[in-house]
């Protein structure tokens, strides 16, 4: 009988000790914030456009962490959905058409002679990419613009255009070959394929 009591006491003591250690560790090594939100936020395109229905990318990341659908980000498109699906280990689903369609990335341009200097677009820009002052012409800092579209609607004279980014010889890259030969960027003409034989 004494052995039994002895064993119970020992186990109870051990439980106490380990419980104390665990409790201490839980407080001492507490993780600040929710790391999964950061990971999701990292995958989002950070346009801060609000097309997902949230006021920015981070709120949407928080919503995803709380179980919202991962297919509400049109700027990110399929790539982002795939990355999110990989991260969260869920099925990659098609983009929710209700929140918009995936489009080519654009940049805002102000038609400067039409601008009246109302500063409404400056207040709307989530990344401070518009430069200007009251009653002075405004302009978009192209390198900072995320193409979120948020400045277009508040403009009272409708002088903001969203234009696709121009491809230059430095930003150009090769496309995936379809029916191409290695060193040509054009499909090979059928004429030169007749009588195909190696030399």
């Amino acid at each position, binding site marked *: 009988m004494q052995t039994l009591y002895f064993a119970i006491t020992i186990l109870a003591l051990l439980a106490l000790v380990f419980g104390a250690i665990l409790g201490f560790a839980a407080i001492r090594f507490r993780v600040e914030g929710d790391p999964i939100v950061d990971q999701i936020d990292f995958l989002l395109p*950070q346009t801060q456009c609000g097309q997902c229905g949230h006021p920015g990318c981070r709120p949407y990341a928080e919503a995803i962490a709380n179980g919202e659908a991962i297919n509400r980000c049109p700027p990110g498109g399929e790539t982002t959905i795939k990355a999110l699906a990989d991260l969260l280990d869920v099925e990659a689903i098609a983009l929710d058409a209700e929140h918009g369609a995936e489009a080519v990335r654009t940049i805002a341009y102000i038609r400067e002679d039409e601008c009246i200097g109302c500063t409404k677009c400056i207040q709307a820009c989530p990344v401070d990419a518009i430069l200007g002052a009251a009653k002075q012409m405004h302009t978009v800092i192209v390198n900072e613009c995320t193409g979120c579209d948020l400045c277009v609607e508040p403009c009272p004279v409708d002088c903001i255009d969203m234009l696709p980014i121009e491809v230059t010889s430095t930003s150009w890259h090769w496309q995936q070959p379809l029916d191409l*030969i290695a060193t040509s960027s054009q499909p090979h003409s059928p004429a*030169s394929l007749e*009588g195909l034989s190696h030399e």
Partner: protein
Amino acid sequence: MSKLWTFHGGVYPPENKHQSSDSVIVHMPLPKQLVLPMSQHIGTPAKAIVAVGERVLKGQLIAAAQGFISANIHAPSSGTVSAIEERTLPHPSALVGQCIIIDTDGQEQWIEHTGLDPAQLTNSELLDAIQKAGITGLGGAGFPSSVKLQPKADISTLIINAAECEPYITADDRLMREYAQQIVAGIELVQQLLGEPKCLIGIEDNKPAAIASLSQALEQRKLKHTHIEICVIPTKYPSGGEKQLIEILTGQQVPHGGIPAELGLVCQNIGTVKAIADAVLLGQPLISRITTVTGKAATQAGNYQVLIGTQISDLLDFAKVDLAKTSRLVMGGPMMGFTLLDSQVPVVKSTNCILAAAELELAPVADHHACIRCGLCELACPAELLPQQLFWFTKAEEFDKAQNHNLSDCIECGACAWVCPSQIPLVQYYRYAKGRVRVLQAETQLAEHARSRFETREQRLIDEKLAKEKKRKARATAATAAQAAKRAANPDAEDPIAAALARVNKQKQATSLSTTAPVAPVTTEEDPYKALKTAAAITRTKLKKTSKALADAQASQHEQVDSLQASVDALTLKANKAQAELKAYEDKLGLDPEQEKQLQLVAVKTNAAVRKLEKSLATAADAAAVEAEIVTAKALHSSAAQALENYQNQSAAKQQETQES
């Protein structure tokens, strides 16, 4: 002869060099127009420093390097700058870029230039001369040479790349045969610059004439050059790749993501070395190069000394290329070159070959077949990659996995595609993958940047709000303090608030005392006539609005049509009722709004007439007549005004009566 190593893989494509290697270098005559792209090198494009219409001399600087990794561009001949505009670039994308266009005048007038004595030059002066001459690597990549020649590490070996491993190209071969002296002089200069390292010249064994010529040139200066060695290496593609040549000559591998300088090595192309000699010893900037024109469609295949900026179409004409026979025009060699879609592009500093291939000369690929995982590509890859795996990852768009398999170490030599039995254009897959990786990296960077800007902005907005709040509070405290101070300074003065309150109280008492006394006939109660009028107007407006809403709803088939219809009916009734009440009231009093309006109109009109006459009085010649007229008009006006007043008084009296009764 020092020991040679070998690299993994490699292929043996047909050399096809004899077509162009047998004839001497021909100087191409001056073309009418030269087109000089601002970006002929890796790095920032140069910036034009000449204006349209300006006359330039041969060798004059026309575009200046921008930043560290960039290169100067000089006028290849004398003439006039006819335009600075966008022209198609010799680039696989066939996109346009900024170019300076020079119409040559045929005088070939040189700008003043003198050679320097290398013995009297310091390293920085030597480097400066090379940098000013706008010299870039002439082997193909076009990296600015001055950058490569100021390595951070100590250099033990200078490697001169004369392998020229790509089929068809013989520009370096001919250069060595004809300009061996200048090449040796150039090597000396580079050695001087790098602290006299030993020099290994790597030449493939398929160029015996070039080897002989170089050996002879070295022999002549034997006493001076005991540490320049010609290393004849076996012909194998791509032994001319920088990393491959280094492995062959030194047995060392350049680490992943590293540069040869980390191993104490600098690699220079043989053409570049000659350009350096010209720049320093003759003071001539890089304005021309040797370009091979070859292929079955070229009837006069050979090597041509071409001015940079010469249109390829001009060069093809001069080399008698049969365009009808040409099925593909390739810039560069058949393994690593790219198809030109347009012959209206200029020769640039890195254009080593123009290949006018006749039909079937380059193996065309009808359609590629499925990968059978034979592994031949792995055996051929000189970079020891797994081409097959990279191909599968690229097809599946799994670029991170491709990156993990060292996609970036691919030198795009085309050996894998050459051996592939399924004829898969592997290199293009890798180029695509590299491009996508670059885009994705840029996007991630951009997103990171946008995030930080967004967060900074949010923080700023919060800070601004807090600062405003703080300021407001500070102002409030300051005001209270000022008040207190004022009171403290003048304790006898009565409190203004208390005084104001007392005043108000006093007034209140006064009014409550005098309520019985009629102070003034304040028309607090509303004029019933006016009230009726207002009510009628309001119901009328309401009816109008609701009817409009109803019409809209009917047009858009809205479901609220019924309820709107009901409210319209109700409002119609109400409006009619209000109108009727108003009418009844008017009838009862015998008021006629029409009559009142008429009277008002007459009064206003007469008044206007008086005003008009008074105005014309100032300018009128017959003042007396006008004055008389004014008197009559005034009389008219006063009678009209009188009538109106009478009427108003009457109706007011009537209203009063009814009210009282």
